[in-house]
């Protein structure tokens, strides 16, 4: 390392974020009409128009080279812009800001130091995925842009965008975005067959008794066990539940007995079930309540559903009912009476099984291996690198540089269809191995002094044999 040089951590945040549709203001003087949403809103109007105009121009320009796949990102010296066209002519642009992305390299001969911009630190795939996720999250709660246009034109759309993104952008923590955002996967809870079948039985019986319920999802400890929704819908709903809804409600649960934060006990000593969305206190007949509405895809379009999230201890069940039905207090009481006791029982069953399994399988065999696993087919992800994932923080136990390497390898994988294995020797004693086999990706980080390629290969094979012994990996 050269003396006097400092390498600072980069911590990106959001410089700007805007949504536009060029067809809304095609003529001279009408440019402002194109802009549907712009953050930060206090920016001067002309600057907004300029920025939008630039993006439009870039996209148009690049279209001439590849009409089907226009530009996804723009790299300039100081920053990057990410483009995403979720629906025809609707564009979302995100410009992250990296506080310290430059390195001063001292020069010889007394010249002023050259500033090098750390362009390579930022991965397109990660922030490209973040933009997509922003849209998916909007769509989950509001339906498509097209739908808003049909219902109330540009006015309604801008209203909805403002209402949603104003809050959502505040929850974006770009500094903790990484490979997992590229995957947008779901963590599944490991469970033995008997308990799984009991849960299936429970879901089937509830859906039969309460025939209004169209779809059900079952989670335990922030991990998914069963989804009655199609994958793409479940994946964004899962992200919402685990990064927004559950954390919001778990803090009161963890609060002490006398804390004012403690959720009001429903007064029902027969079970521990309660509504996370909807009525907080069933006993109060005056209290008003409503359920959030979500949009999921059907064969030929979308349907709007009430989202009921009901929790008992660590088990959470999501029930989705057509939004055209009005959900009354009686219905909620019926659901509470039916689901509460059963879910409480199931939750303690699962807990018991989990404890038994852990005792059987012995002490954690994971800690020695740091890895990330993802299966494109069922979106199953597993990471021993990431700790508690909340809305505010996602800690990783490895150096960001290593995460960057993982991202690079992933980009490589994405470019070809064939199965691959890539081994990288990183700094000091770190080795990174990426394995791609038939829709599955596995990334392993090993820290071994003086290891060579063969030893590293053997280690990874061992990992596959122990952790993934029922998964077929091509060697």
């Amino acid at each position: 390392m050269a003396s006097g040089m400092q390498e600072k951590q980069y911590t990106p945040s959001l410089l700007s974020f805007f949504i536009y549709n060029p067809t809304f203001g095609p003529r001279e003087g009408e440019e402002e009409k194109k802009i549907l949403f712009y953050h930060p809103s206090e920016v001067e109007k002309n600057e907004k128009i300029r920025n939008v105009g630039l993006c439009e121009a870039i996209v148009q320009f690049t279209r001439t080279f590849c009409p089907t796949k226009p530009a996804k990102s723009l790299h300039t010296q100081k920053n990057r812009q990410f483009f995403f066209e979720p629906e025809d002519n609707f564009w979302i642009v995100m410009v992250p800001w990296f506080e310290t992305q430059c390195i001063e390299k001292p020069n010889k001969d007394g010249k002023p130091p050259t500033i090098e911009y750390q362009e390579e630190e930022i991965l397109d795939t990660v922030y490209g995925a973040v933009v997509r996720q922003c849209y998916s999250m909007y769509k989950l709660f509001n339906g498509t842009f097209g739908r808003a246009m049909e219902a109330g034109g540009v006015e309604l759309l801008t209203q909805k965008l403002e209402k949603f993104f104003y809050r959502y952008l505040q929850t974006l923590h770009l500094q903790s975005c990484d490979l997992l955002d590229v995957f947008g996967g779901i963590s599944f809870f490991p469970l033995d067959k008997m308990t799984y079948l009991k849960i299936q039985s429970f879901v089937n019986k509830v859906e039969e008794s309460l025939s209004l319920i169209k779809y059900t999802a079952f989670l335990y400890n922030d991990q998914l066990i069963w989804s009655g929704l199609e994958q793409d819908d479940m994946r964004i709903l899962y992200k919402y539940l685990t990064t927004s809804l559950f954390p919001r409600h778990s803090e009161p649960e963890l609060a002490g007995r006398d804390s004012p934060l403690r959720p009001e006990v429903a007064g029902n000593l027969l079970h521990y079930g309660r509504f996370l969305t909807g009525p907080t206190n069933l006993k109060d007949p005056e209290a008003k309540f409503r359920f959030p509405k979500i949009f999921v895809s059907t064969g030929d379009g979308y349907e709007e559903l009430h989202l009921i999230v009901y929790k008992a201890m660590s088990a959470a069940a999501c029930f989705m009912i057509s939004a055209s039905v009005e959900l009354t207090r009686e219905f909620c009481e019926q659901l509470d009476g039916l689901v509460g006791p059963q879910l409480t029982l199931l939750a303690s069953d699962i807990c018991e099984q989990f404890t038994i399994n852990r005792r059987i399988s012995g002490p954690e065999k994971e800690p020695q291996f740091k890895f990330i696993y993802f299966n494109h087919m069922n979106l199953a992800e597993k990471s021993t690198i990431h700790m508690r994932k909340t809305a505010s923080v996602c800690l990783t136990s490895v150096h960001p540089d290593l995460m960057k390497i993982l991202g690079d390898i992933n980009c490589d994988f994405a470019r070809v269809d064939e199965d691959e294995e890539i081994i990288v020797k990183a700094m000091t004693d770190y080795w990174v191995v990426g394995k791609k086999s038939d829709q599955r990706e596995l990334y392993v980080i090993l820290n071994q002094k003086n290891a060579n390629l063969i030893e590293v290969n053997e280690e990874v094979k061992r990992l596959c044999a122990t952790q993934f012994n029922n998964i077929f990996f091509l060697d």
Partner: protein
Amino acid sequence: MSEEHYLELCENPVQFEHASSVNNVFFDEANKQVFAVRSGGATGVVVKGPDDKSSVAFRMDDKGEVKCIKFSIGNKILAVQRTSKSVVFPDKRSLKLLKSQSINVNWYQYCPETAVILLSTTVQGNILQPFAFRSGTMSKMSKFEIELPVVPKPAKLSLSERDIAMATIYGQLHVMYLKHHSRTANSTSAEVVLYHLPREGACKKSHVLKLNTTGKFALNIVDNLVVVHHQSSQTSLIFDIKLKEPDCAVNTHQPVLPARSIHPYRIPLSGPAVVPSQPPVPCQLYSSSWSVFQPDIIISASEGYLWYLQVKLPPTVNLLQDKGKLMDFLLRRRDCKMVILSVCSQSTRGVLPVVATVFDKLNQVYKEYLEAEQSYTVAMESGPSRGSAAQKRPVRTQAVIDQSDMYTHVLSSFTERKGVSHKFIIAVLMEYIRSLNQFQITVQHYLYELVIKTLVQHNLFYMLHQFLQYHVLSDSKPLACLLLSLESTYPPAHQLSLDMLKVSLARCSSQITVPSLETRCCSTRCSGRSSRETSG
């Protein structure tokens, strides 16, 4: 209404000349033979039993009124009683006194199946003294008291022979007491009190059957059910002493089903009749000329018929709404298989909780049989054990419903049924699999195949995927091959089948070549790329 009769008289009764001024009819309970004695035997004695292919006829001298007449086993020795104190054997034979006992006896009853005689002793007659006959010996058993509803003062004979019957129920000897008035203040209806009479040890009151009415009753035992006939209403009730009643005191039983009459009977046109065929007439049921014998015999002396009473299971299905109780009832009956399968089919038109209950009930029995089979196999394999009796091979009763039965008679046609939601079809299949798993019964692969085929048929791929991910559908080679065959419809099946093959192959050491498996082009790249090492 014919659908509701759950008791019937057998199709081919034993026919004999009906009782009249010249013909006396006697019934031997031990050999179940009917003796029609004409004119004291002078004009002929015809003996007919249910096992006899043809009747035995002979003559004997009319030496006075016959009080009792019986054959020994195989019709070898005839015994005739004409006076109250002597028995005549027409053929000269020698008799040897084996044992004698001196007791004051009011009356007696003899149970041929168990070779136990019951003597009524004491003035009131309610102290019963049993004796067991076994390999030429007579042994005294513990005497016991029958609780009388009213204690008479002064003491007199209060227990009649007509109110006591002995029968074997579920392999155990019971003494049944028809108690006409209950002692409890708030109930005046009759009940049947069962006393369990074990080989060794004390006799104890074991069950109380509530009749909820009064009048004249008769008892039979059919298929381990206590049948109580009520003359005035011309109906019968059945009780299963192994059914637990949740609302009643321990070992008190209500009738299993609502009272119904025995199935109406028309006397058959032809039959192995001794006398010329009688014209077909509807038979009068519950007539006062009926005599009831243990365990399951009804005789009409005035019409000349001996019937076996039988249980008809199909009508019970619609009479018992609680399907859990219905299953408990059916699983203990002899000819229950097809009825149980029909209950399963019927339950698939109902709600899931009932389906789950029905499956759990029958799998409990199935599991018990599998375990018995297994311990027998283990015992046989480990060789003859020292001293203990040879284990008997467990008998597979009709109540054992295995997966093949369910597949053939219930599930296969259920999955094809039109107008049923596909979610419900899958839910029922998964309920059966859950139940099998709960009883730790290995699920046969054809059931998993049925699940997969149904899921694929209805494009429920996201469900299929999740089931496979959690290994709910156990890994096996046949399933892996089935998944491979689905690849064209559902590409991810390729990955799933490879995983399953890997697990299945790991279990057995044989190699399997699957011709349809394409080898994927796999490249292994290795690069020693260094990251932005800032070392100089």
